């Protein structure tokens, strides 16, 4: 039986080893894809092994080595981390199934590179999830940016190059210009960057400094896509759809908001922040991002672009909920991490399935597509409900908690934002569903008969849609973990 | 110039004396002005003088280029060798005192060989520089 510590290391090394094996098996695609799936399953097993341990209250930790005195690469599994790891590793399996179908269905080039980078990205994600201090998190955060760059620029076209520039420039730029100084400053002030319950900065800085430092951290974590540093997300849309799904639902954006929550809870400490009143502006900025991104989404005709702006908006829910600093809203933030992940991946899967089967990318082309692709659009509908925050999808639960938190702390601005954005969400998702099911297909020149996408893709998107509903009825695991994070 | 009898005769007369003077400067360096640098240059001058009068092709026959290059290297080696000898005899690098039971004699011995090294290298370098430039431009006469 392997110990929790070994399981932690295994969760980093299994995807690494997987990447190596995938590279070695490049000549036999079936073996290569088999390895991908096997790696993903093994990774999930490792994480599941850790889950009961953490639920029981243990916090297994591994310390590898110190880069500088007091600055070490170390891992420690805590509730939020295990939840993130669970989401990422669980969805990787589904995403792999989907990717295989997508890559083969569209006869993409450089498939080995694609799967290798995917596995490496998961390794980096696990590193972020389990990091025991801000430095380790920073290291893996940067690695994740670099590893996903080849995925974003996968097509190698001029457009991909431009998208890659924005992607890398914004993510790397913000992390170097804002997060790195913040990291050095935190270390300079407190002599450590360890994630500690209650934070490590208590009593060491005055309110203004805390506010400035928080701004550096939150804007430095560009992956959270807070405005005005959100442009990379739509730019990264040039990537193949499975990558978009990974970026937008699983690894990258979640790594962003996960890091923000971690920094707020474990570096600054909720009490320190609320004493300094340092997060009011963040609530405002996040609220603005929610509404503004939704408005942009409303006007986007390209389906992936609409989904991208929806992501930006949904991410800011998490940031805003965390910035409210109320226990209920923080539980909502944690839950929304999971809720948005399963929901958004379903939506992207659906978008990719439509592209693969019907070669359609614009919302205006989707008239009547629900009749030809009932499974796909059915899954799309469930996920869209989750995004809007309607039962029976998990989005309802997370929004409920966030709203309760906002009301409990009497942040009426936040309440208003949630209300307005719910309307906006409905405004940009429901027309798609309406077109798909209730508008008769227009027989344009580009139209050709088609059915569902390849079977693997349909299985994948159905599974995640089912997950959305399942989490609505059984939100126990994320809820328990969220409560543990807050020591409730 | 090769056919200028006066120059050729005088050169033949002078060159031995130049060489002798070089040796004088070399060995007198211990006690008075002089030493390896000057001696080396004078030594080279003798050959350069020969080359001026008889052409550098002939000079190269007397003092071939590989020899010149070896001299450059050899001188440095002699110098460094003296230092190493000091090491081997139990002193520090370039320690002359240990070169002889009598420290003053050791100093003499050390500086003598060092100057030999210097003279060798300097004359080698001078000739090398001269040959390098002489080979170009006018072509082989």
């Amino acid at each position, binding site marked *: 039986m392997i110990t929790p510590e070994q399981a932690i290391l295994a969760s980093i090394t299994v995807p690494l080893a997987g990447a190596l094996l995938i590279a070695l098996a490049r000549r036999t695609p079936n073996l290569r894809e088999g390895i991908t799936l096997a790696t993903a399953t093994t990774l999930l097993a490792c994480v599941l092994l850790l889950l009961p341990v953490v639920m029981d209250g243990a916090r297994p930790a591994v310390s590898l080595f110190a880069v500088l005195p007091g600055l070490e690469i170390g891992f420690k599994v805590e509730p939020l981390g295990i939840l993130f790891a669970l989401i990422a590793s669980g969805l990787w399996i589904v995403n792999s199934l989907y990717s295989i179908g997508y890559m083969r269905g569209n006869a993409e080039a450089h498939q080995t590179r694609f799967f290798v980078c995917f596995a490496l990205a998961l390794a980096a994600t696990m590193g972020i999830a389990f990091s025991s201090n801000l430095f380790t998190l920073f290291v893996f955060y940067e690695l994740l940016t670099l590893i996903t760059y080849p995925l974003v620029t996968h097509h190698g076209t001029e457009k991909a190059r431009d998208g890659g520039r924005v992607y890398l420039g914004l993510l790397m730029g913000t992390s170097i210009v804002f997060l790195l100084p913040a990291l050095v400053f935190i270390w300079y002030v407190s002599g450590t960057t360890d994630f500690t319950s209650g934070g490590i900065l208590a009593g060491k800085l005055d309110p203004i400094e805390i506010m400035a430092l928080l701004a550096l951290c939150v804007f430095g974590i560009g992956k959270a896509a807070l405005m005005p540093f959100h442009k990379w997300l739509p730019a990264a849309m040039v990537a193949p759809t499975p990558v978009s799904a990974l970026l937008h639902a699983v690894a990258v954006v979640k790594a962003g908001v996960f890091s923000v929550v971690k920094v707020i809870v474990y570096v600054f400490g909720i009490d320190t922040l609320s004493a300094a009143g340092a997060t009011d502006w963040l609530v405002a900025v996040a609220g603005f991002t929610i509404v503004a991104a939704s408005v942009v989404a409303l006007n986007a005709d390209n389906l992936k672009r609409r989904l991208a702006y929806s992501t930006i908006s949904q991410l800011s829910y998490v940031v805003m909920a965390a910035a409210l600093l109320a226990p209920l809203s923080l539980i909502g933030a944690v839950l929304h991490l999971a809720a948005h992940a399963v929901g958004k991946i379903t939506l992207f899967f659906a978008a990719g399935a439509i592209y693969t089967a019907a070669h359609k990318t614009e919302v205006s082309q989707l008239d009547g597509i629900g009749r030809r692709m009932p499974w796909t659009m059915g899954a799309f509908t469930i996920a869209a409900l989750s995004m809007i925050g309607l039962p029976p999808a998990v989005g309802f639960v997370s929004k409920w908690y966030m709203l309760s938190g906002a009301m409990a702390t009497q942040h009426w601005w936040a309440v208003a934002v949630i209300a307005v954005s719910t309307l906006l969400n409905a405004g940009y998702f429901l027309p798609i569903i309406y077109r798909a099911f209730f508008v008769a297909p227009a027989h344009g020149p580009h139209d050709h008969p088609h059915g569902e996408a390849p079977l693997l893709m349909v299985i994948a998107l159905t599974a995640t849609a089912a997950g959305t509903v399942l989490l609505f009825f059984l939100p126990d695991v994320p809820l328990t973990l969220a409560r543990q994070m807050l020591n409730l | 110039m090769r056919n200028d009898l006066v120059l050729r005769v005088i050169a033949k007369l002078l060159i031995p004396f130049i060489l002798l003077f070089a040796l004088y400067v070399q060995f007198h360096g211990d006690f008075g002005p002089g030493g390896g640098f000057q001696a080396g240059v004078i030594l080279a001058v003798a050959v350069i003088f020969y080359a001026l009068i008889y052409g550098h092709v002939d000079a190269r026959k007397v003092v071939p280029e590989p020899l010149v290059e070896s001299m450059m290297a050899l001188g440095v080696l002699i110098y460094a060798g003296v230092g190493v000898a000091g090491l081997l005899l139990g002193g520090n690098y370039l320690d002359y005192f240990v070169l002889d039971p009598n420290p003053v004699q050791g100093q003499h011995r050390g500086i003598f060989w060092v100057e030999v090294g210097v003279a060798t290298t300097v004359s080698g370098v001078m000739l090398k520089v001269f040959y390098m*430039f002489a080979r*170009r431009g006018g072509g082989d006469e």
Partner: protein
Amino acid sequence: MTGLEKAMALGGHFTYFITIFLMIAGLFIVIARGNLIKKLVGLGIFQTSVYLLYIAPAKLVGGTAPILSDAFTVYSNPLPHVLILTAIVVGVATLALGLALVVRIREAYDSIEEDEILDLDAAAQPGVQEP
């Protein structure tokens, strides 16, 4: 201090003025001349000024070379002389190398004017060369 005394004090420093003049003259030639050989000449003058800077303060009026003898009691400081001997050798080596380079540059470009050479390079590979 009277004017005369000032003049005397300045006069006593005349070696420094020569040194500084040579230094600046040499440096000026290096910078202002485009001819590669003339640049080397300037460099030589510049280096020579340093020899003076070292030697002049070391020389005592009436002092002799530091050779042990009962007849003399006033010696010049030998150390700067030795140092400058080394510096001269270094200077000669630099000059020789510089001239050798100029010879080869002339063989390669058929010119020893810096601006002409830069033009030739720029013409050979447009866009690559820069100031």
